[in-house]
């Protein structure tokens, strides 16, 4: 069951001011239940099916620089942080899919100063 609603997600670049050639932190946060498939729903008493993000790709101008495989052992509303050496102006895109086939992506422009 692929949900079409876009998930809330956010990309943060730290620090806020950076130059080309600097190594910055790229933080990616997404609102996702990350159900393990073992917990019971408190209202209905039925076991919730597993629902978690399994693949994440960080890319810069279409070129992937980090790929991740993630399991349900990662916390609810997951947070992933990697480093990235800024080559210049461009766009960081994060594509992520979950085990139900839901696909989403989020992007942010990089604007190095100086």
């Amino acid at each position, binding site marked *: 069951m692929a949900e079409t609603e876009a998930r809330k997600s956010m990309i943060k670049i730290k620090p806020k001011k950076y130059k080309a050639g600097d*190594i910055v932190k790229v933080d990616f946060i997404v609102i996702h239940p990350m159900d393990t498939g073992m917990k019971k729903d408190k209202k209905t008493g039925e076991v919730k099916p*597993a629902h978690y993000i399994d693949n994440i790709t960080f890319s810069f101008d279409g070129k992937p620089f*980090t790929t991740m495989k993630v399991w349900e*052992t990662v*916390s*609810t509303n997951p947070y992933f*942080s990697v*480093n990235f050496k800024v080559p210049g102006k461009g766009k960081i895109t994060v594509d992520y899919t979950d085990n139900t086939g839901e696909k989403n992506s989020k992007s942010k422009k990089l604007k190095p100063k100086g």
Partner: protein
Amino acid sequence: MKRRSFMKSMMAASAVAAAPMALMAKEDAPKAKKKGPNDMTYDAAVAAITGGKEVKDSDKIKLTVPEIAENGAVVPVKVEVDHPMEENNYVKAIHILNTKNGNARCADVMLTPANGKGYFATRVKLGGTQEVVGLVELSDGTFIKAGKSIKVTIGGCG
């Protein structure tokens, strides 16, 4: 006569000894039954990643985790690798593993030289007091690891 009585007593004793063993085994079975969809033990996960290669403990990896986690559902884990990120000599992958969750794997991160630094941070769920291991693959095919134990007050892997 002596031998017969001895045998009898032995059989009785062994029956007594065997009975609780069988009971215990029965009690253990339902506990182990509760399984998630991707369950994998720690040893199996390491073997799957390394392909049987040797894994060395290394000071190069800086694993930052809390000593005591009050809430097992959200445990921050940070891995920093002190290794150059050059074209032919870089940190290829960072794997975050745990030793006692049903599924020992948390995240496999494939890095490239464009990252500039071997760094990864996330938050994981831990079912109980256990060790979190950062397993790092370098571009020359060697594996290094660092582990730290975390005390978990309330488990978060329901």
